[in-house]
């Protein structure tokens, strides 16, 4: 009896905030069958938006993964001045508004920005083109891999690595044969989180993309654009694809997390 109260509160909260709205989108999308859903998704502008999102994610995720692993190793294993500062700084994008990220890039690469005249002279387009989308997405998803790798490395300790070293293994050998296998699930988990963030980034991308339909519009911007143009079916369909990816991400997260904890 004592437990029923909290359980009821928690479950109704989750239902009201999370599950019921999601169910509603699902219902609204397929209200008139699957045909409008497919029709909305096969729209050439929507297809292009998904392509842009995938391209940006395909560039941002590997870069952030390499960065996350190297930074994680440096913070968990290295001894150098300013380590605490670096550790805190990596977290900044988590606490920062995506709009601030977008504006910063806008000011840096825009016409009047620091690099503006230089880029203009050499005819390089960064703002309102895919490089800005990539930069904004990388910025927003910088911390995830490092955040997963650091606690795992700390828990692991460096005894095995030192043992490998004394036996004559090089830095690279030690990393590849000892460190990498023991942090691989942390990396997978971080990569999954990074991918989710890259696919779903909105605020930073909205500012630097210029929203050129069929050119720099990403899937998330397409959702907003469709909704504002009263194409709710289009908006719901794209949103549902993104939500399906989110659920897939969730499943992978649930599958990889216990393995990590059992190590």
């Amino acid at each position: 009896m004592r437990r029923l109260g909290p359980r009821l509160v928690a479950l109704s909260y989750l239902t009201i905030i999370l599950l019921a709205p999601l169910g509603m989108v699902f219902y609204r999308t397929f209200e008139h069958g699957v045909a409008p859903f497919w029709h909305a998704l096969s729209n050439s502008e929507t297809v292009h938006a998904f392509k842009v999102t995938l391209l940006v994610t395909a560039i941002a995720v590997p870069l952030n993964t390499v960065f996350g692993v190297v930074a994680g190793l440096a913070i968990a294993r290295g001894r150098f001045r300013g380590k605490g500062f670096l550790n805190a700084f990596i977290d900044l994008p988590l606490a920062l508004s995506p709009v601030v990220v977008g504006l910063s890039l806008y000011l840096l690469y825009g016409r009047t920005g620091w690099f503006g005249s230089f880029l203009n002279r050499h005819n390089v387009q960064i703002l309102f083109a895919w490089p800005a989308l990539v930069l904004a997405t990388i910025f927003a998803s910088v911390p995830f891999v490092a955040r997963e790798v650091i606690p795992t490395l700390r828990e692991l300790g460096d005894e095995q690595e030192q043992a490998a070293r004394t036996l004559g293994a090089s830095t690279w050998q030690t990393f590849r044969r000892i460190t990498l296998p023991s942090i691989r699930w942390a990396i997978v988990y971080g990569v999954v989180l990074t991918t989710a963030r890259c696919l779903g980034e909105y605020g930073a991308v909205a500012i630097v993309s210029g929203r050129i339909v069929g050119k720099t519009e990403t899937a998330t911007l397409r959702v907003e654009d469709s909704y504002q143009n009263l194409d709710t079916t289009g908006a719901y369909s794209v949103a549902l694809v993104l939500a399906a990816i989110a659920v897939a991400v969730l499943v992978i997260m649930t599958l990889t997390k216990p393995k990590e904890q059992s190590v």
Partner: protein
Amino acid sequence: MPAASAVVSAPRARAATFRGARRGTALSLGFVSTFLSVIVVLPIAALMWESKRNGAHTFWQVVSSPEARAALELTLGAAVGVALFNAVLGTVTAWVLVRDDFRGKSLVNAVIDLPFALPTIVAGLTLLALYGPHSPVGVDVAFTRVAIGLALCFVTLPFVVRTAQPVLHELDREMEEAARSLGASDFTVFRRIVLPNILPGVLSGMALALARGVGEIGAVVLISGNLPYRTEVSSVFVMNRIESGDPAGASAVAVVLLVVSFALLLAIGGVRYLVTRFDRA
């Protein structure tokens, strides 16, 4: 003699390896700092520089203008309110997930992370589908401040749950049983035993939720209607300023948001530091 040369070369090889390790550290540090500089530091510096170039006068003029002030007050108020709301319901949810047992609990546990994985614009759209103009349940909060609260609750839902849950899991239940056998009521046990233990976790979860709430745009932009003075949050204000060609106005409010983020990161670091110091003592 091969044996002798092996003996001689072993320490030398080891020295070379350690030199290699140090070179590896330097190399990785160089990579990390270059990457962070290009991606994070340089853009932030551009923002600070833009704000400084416009001068303190412009900054105050923008920030104290009625529209910006209304947006900032609304944002901070909503974020604080949602963080407090989360502190209560997040703790209850974490408690249920750790102490309660029912069918489908692991599913509920997985669902908590959904707002982390779901794109924020999709979050806003889903809320609009159920609580918007065509609401099937007859609740239409679109273009009101309630909608902003709802959107922020959606995106910040996991923070307190995920910071309180592990602490609650580790908590020694003997303490609670001792208190109960001494005649403490459920509420007293919670207030005197459970709460002090999970408070640091709840606080850092609240700080994360606060940071997220202050900066949120995707979940809010569709459902709030962005009416100046009424439902326009700071991040939307910044975006509108950029789109109407007023980078000075945008940067002033953005700097305020940046300072709030820094302050909250410091607060989270502070809580973490106090906890580890307390644990060591």
